[in-house]
């Protein structure tokens, strides 16, 4: 059976779960937006996340840039990579069979990972955490570092900003319109390719932020660090309801809670941690295939 724990310990795990979950959610948003619009699983998304982490590592550790600049440069770099992926690997295949686009996606992901091994070397590198973010303090009996609170705060703020962009601006309107009917939207005079590029840019920027925060929380970077979080974040997007941004955050949080809490209560399961997401995917597909907050995506005839 599981172990008994004090309230303080529970709160500690709770905060961990919110932090991890909001990171999953932030990555999941990029998946859900691209899937909502193109019905494409952007396998390279997890690698953009990895690039974000690496860029901030090089900017701050190798080039000794101040953190603020380093973070901005990393976000810009990763966003550019996301745009390039769309332009080079996905746009030529817009009218090709879906399986071609999927193969291209997995090919790009494979390429970025292997190129990173050659360029950055396959060795994991330690990330230096800014001391300011790591100065421990305690509320009640719960010991905390500022980073643990900063991660969910930034994640939720960015998600809220994105929602505003999608529901209150013309570009957002165009995005929602494309996800309903890409051809009609084109006929309405919307530059579809530009809106799709914007979607990739936004998703990549969020993935980069998640990557940076991930590198701070688990202080190391390596070329394959994006595969498992990316895989889990996609499942979070499906769990929350693919196509829905609040759903992506909710799915991410759910997954964060399942992972942290099941290990907190059943430490013996820690070897199987990466399997929980998969079980969650199978369960939601069996019980509610549209996800917690999703609408049914209609078949396009």
């Amino acid at each position, binding site marked *: 059976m599981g172990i008994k724990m004090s309230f303080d310990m529970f709160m500690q795990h709770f905060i961990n779960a919110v932090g991890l979950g909001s990171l999953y959610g932030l990555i999941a948003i990029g998946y859900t937006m691209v899937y909502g619009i193109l019905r494409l699983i952007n*396998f390279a998304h997890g690698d953009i996340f990895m690039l974000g982490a690496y860029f901030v590592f090089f900017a701050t550790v190798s080039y000794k840039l101040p953190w603020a600049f380093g973070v901005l440069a990393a976000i810009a770099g990763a966003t550019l990579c996301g745009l390039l992926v769309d332009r080079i690997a996905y746009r030529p*295949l817009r009218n090709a*069979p879906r399986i071609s686009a999927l193969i291209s996606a997995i090919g790009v992901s*494979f390429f970025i990972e292997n190129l990173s091994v*050659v360029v950055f070397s396959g060795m994991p590198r330690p990330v230096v955490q800014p001391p300011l973010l790591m100065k421990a303090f305690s509320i009640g009996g719960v010991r905390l570092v500022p980073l643990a609170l900063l991660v969910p705060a930034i994640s939720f703020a960015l998600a809220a900003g994105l929602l505003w962009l999608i529901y209150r601006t013309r570009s957002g309107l165009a995005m929602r319109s494309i996800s309903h009917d890409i051809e009609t939207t084109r006929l309405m005079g919307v530059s579809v390719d530009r809106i799709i590029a914007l979607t990739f840019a936004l998703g990549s920027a969020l993935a980069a932020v998640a990557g940076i925060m991930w590198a701070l929380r688990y202080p190391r970077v390596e070329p394959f660090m994006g595969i498992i979080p990316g895989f889990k974040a996609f499942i979070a997007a499906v769990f929350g309801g693919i196509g829905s941004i609040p759903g992506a955050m909710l799915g991410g949080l759910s997954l964060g809670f399942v992972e942290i809490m099941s290990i907190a209560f059943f430490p013996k399961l820690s*070897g199987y941690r990466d399997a929980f997401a998969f079980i969650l995917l199978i369960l939601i597909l069996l019980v509610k295939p549209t996800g917690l907050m999703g609408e049914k995506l209609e078949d396009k*005839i």
Partner: protein
Amino acid sequence: MSGPDAIGEGNNKTRDAVLTAVAAVVFAAALWLASSNLDGYKLRIINLIAINAILGLSLNLIYGMTGMFSLGHAGFMAIGAYVSALLILSPEQKTTMWILEPIAPWLLNVRAPFVVSLAAAGLAAAFFGWLVALPVLRLGGDYLGIATLGFSEIIRILITNLTPITNGSLGLKGIPAHTDIRMSYGCLAVVLFCMVRLMRSNFGNVLRAVRDDEIAARTMGIDTFRTRVLAFTLGCFGGGLGGALMGNLITTIDPKMFMITQTYSLLMIVVVGGLGSITGSIVGAVVVTTMLEWLRFVENPVTIGGVNIPGIPGMRMVIFSLLLIVVIIFRREGIMGMREFSWSRLFRGGSGGGGRR
């Protein structure tokens, strides 16, 4: 709707049968010569080609014939390799190999001949494939890629953690090298025969219908869900069989062998050969297997004209993945497209391999 290979059938059936028989005998003789004259390294590559062809064919059944996207073949190979190895290893080998934890008692004395272990490997992989396919394909298969990718990782997690059964991360060593030219090409011949018969049967037509237009297929009364599950399960059987042959060729298996990279190489075989072409998967297996070996030179230091160029570790896979993208963007149909080899096309067109290059 009959397959593209129906063109040459009819008046030339006898001639084609004779030609096929002659070609098979010539090929078998060539293999026999090779197995007694070539060194171990070359023989290993020749064996690998056959195994990769089996794996490529089984993945093509999922990708090219039915239009599903799966990334789990490495996982199904792992299941096959472990099932086969556990059945072949002797109780003495097992007792000495399990160092960290003792082997599960029920497993110690289980033994089977090689051929039986191959069948068991295929069946076990097919069973797990079926288990994954049931919930995931209910939705038409959009999430199959991600679910199988996850499954393949979970198989590795399970193998690493279930030490009493799998010996954990230490893997299994000293598997008897049962896979020789006779065995690997024998299996390939059986798989090839089954694939050709399958694709010429009505079920082959059903698969193509589901791939080309799911809604139209459903209107015709085809149960697309069942068709997909069946095709996927059959494909996984091939994955398990290939994995078992691989394990008995290399004689050592561990969880690290079955990473996603393994699936990428198979994907490359199917894409380069041509999605939906049986001939293509064979051609793809030859091309990709030899290319992967040949590409090792970029990782070794070379001296050109007195200048020493250091090898770049990992460069092989960069070139390899770049090729995958280039092929899928610029030549989506691969080498064969959906065409198949046929004798009459060979005589008529005069171009090798039965199609335009």
